[in-house]
């Protein structure tokens, strides 16, 4: 059992966003409450709520200030908090295929040099953990995953790349993630998945959602084309 968590506080960010704030730390047990409370708010149909967004340690509740019922939200949060203490839904596990190194992972050698190990050992340490999806943000379908094996933790590149290709898998500090579309980016790139992590036309546009468990699976480079389609969940 983990230490008891303190109950969340409701905090305003202007008149159109209510932040339900939990303990400000990146920890699976805190984020599990975030995900449970966010889901409860989304399902509760609180008057005036326009969008519910999980963060690392907070839930953002976007509201129409003239229709929003603050006391209804407080009740939902309090109830969800109590239920989440006993429920704890089992996480979905998603295995993401990744071609490491070479053209797909231009920074793999540099990460290995920084870690003082071989590129193969970086791949082994990156594929070993079961990561948690803490939240999505930055770009549609971009999931913040933690935590990376500290021995292969590297800072962002000093200057971001102007264009990172969709599917690129990067490391920044103790976080790792997959770029869902071509974009500028500063994370160190060690591999690339053939999957499209976000497609607005799919039934489930994003492959990942907050609370999921993720493993990376090393894919031989000649298997790229065999793995381009995302399995339906």
């Amino acid at each position, binding site marked *: 059992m983990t230490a008891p968590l303190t109950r969340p506080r409701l905090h305003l*960010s202007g008149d159109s966003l209510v932040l339900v704030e939990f303990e400000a730390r990146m920890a699976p047990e805190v984020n599990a409450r975030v995900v449970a409370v966010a889901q409860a708010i989304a399902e509760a149909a609180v008057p005036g709520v326009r969008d519910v967004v999980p963060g690392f*340690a*907070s839930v953002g509740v976007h509201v129409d*200030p*003239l229709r929003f019922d603050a006391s209804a939200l407080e009740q939902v949060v309090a109830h969800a908090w109590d239920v989440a203490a006993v429920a704890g839904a089992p996480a979905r596990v998603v295995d993401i295929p990744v071609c490491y190194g070479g053209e797909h992972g231009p920074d793999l050698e540099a990460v290995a040099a920084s870690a003082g190990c071989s590129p193969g050992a970086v791949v082994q340490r990156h594929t070993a953990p079961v990561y948690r999806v803490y939240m999505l943000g930055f770009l549609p379908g971009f999931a913040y995953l933690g935590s990376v094996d500290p021995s292969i933790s590297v800072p962002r590149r000093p200057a971001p790349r102007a264009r990172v290709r969709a599917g690129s898998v990067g490391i920044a500090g103790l976080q790792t993630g997959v770029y869902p579309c071509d974009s500028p980016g500063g994370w160190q790139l060690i591999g690339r998945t053939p999957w499209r992590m976000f497609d607005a036309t799919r039934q489930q546009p994003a492959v990942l959602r907050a609370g999921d468990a993720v493993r990376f699976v090393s894919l031989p480079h000649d298997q790229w084309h065999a793995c381009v389609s995302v399995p339906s969940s």
Partner: protein
Amino acid sequence: MSSAAGITVVRPGLLTTVQDLGRWGSQALGVPVSGAMDSMAHRLANALVGNAPTAATLEVTLIGPELRADRALVVAVAGAAFVLGVDGRAAPHHTAFALAPGATLRFGERRAGSRAYLAVAGGIDTPPVLGSRATHLLSGMGGLDGRALVRGDVLPLGPAPTHVGPHRAPPASPPPAAGLVRSLRVMLGPQDTWFSPHAIETLLHEVYRVSTQSNRMGFQLEGPLVAATRADGLLSEPVPFGALQVPAGGSPILLMADRQTAGGYPKIATVIAADLPLAGQLGPGDVVRFAACTRTEARAALIARERELLRLMPEESGA
């Protein structure tokens, strides 16, 4: 419902995009809200042609487009005051008017404000993406192929509402002319305690200029620095339209319609909903000051703004 081609882009202007009230409900997937920078002008333009407020309009930025009607249309322009011309004759602002097939609507000199909204009876009918037609430029989502309009684009239109009269709005206070100091009301926080009392005094008593490094995601503000006193990072958290986030250098950034769903910079204050349309009319070089207000004052201001919008709207669409 089939949509018919209705508008051809002769000249696109500086940045003309399809917008609506935003892509709400998908931020948990990291999908930005986007939508009109000045939602009040967007709603007014729609009301003038008999559209629902959710119908998509064209957001026109700083330098306007030239558009050809491919069939008979009823249109209205609200927000930034441009000199409007139809085949060389003057056309009115804040008033619905008809375009004959083949007529060309030209946005000329801009007199005040930065963004105008062109509504067409029936609405711009590009395919909705996740429930919205709003264009998000960075992710290439929504609108016309996720991008700004270019010459030769043809915009599909929805079926026009049956009762469209020549609606004229009562005179509205125009967006302030360039050079005046605009005042935006803010509620402090959510990380105001990360800043020194001096930094908060500075924010509330100095003026800031909107930099040329500004776009639909956010306005970089030039003025006295207000760096946070805490050095530990903020865990990335959801952010609203109007948040004033402060990166390590101390120059505030006002988050606008295309903002990311979450951010890790501390936010010293947040512009209230009632003043977001005014913020949406700011352009490079415009000067703003910030005034603190309470939640109660923010609510009263929003009610007053909605009353003003009702006053401007034609009666049958005022509900």
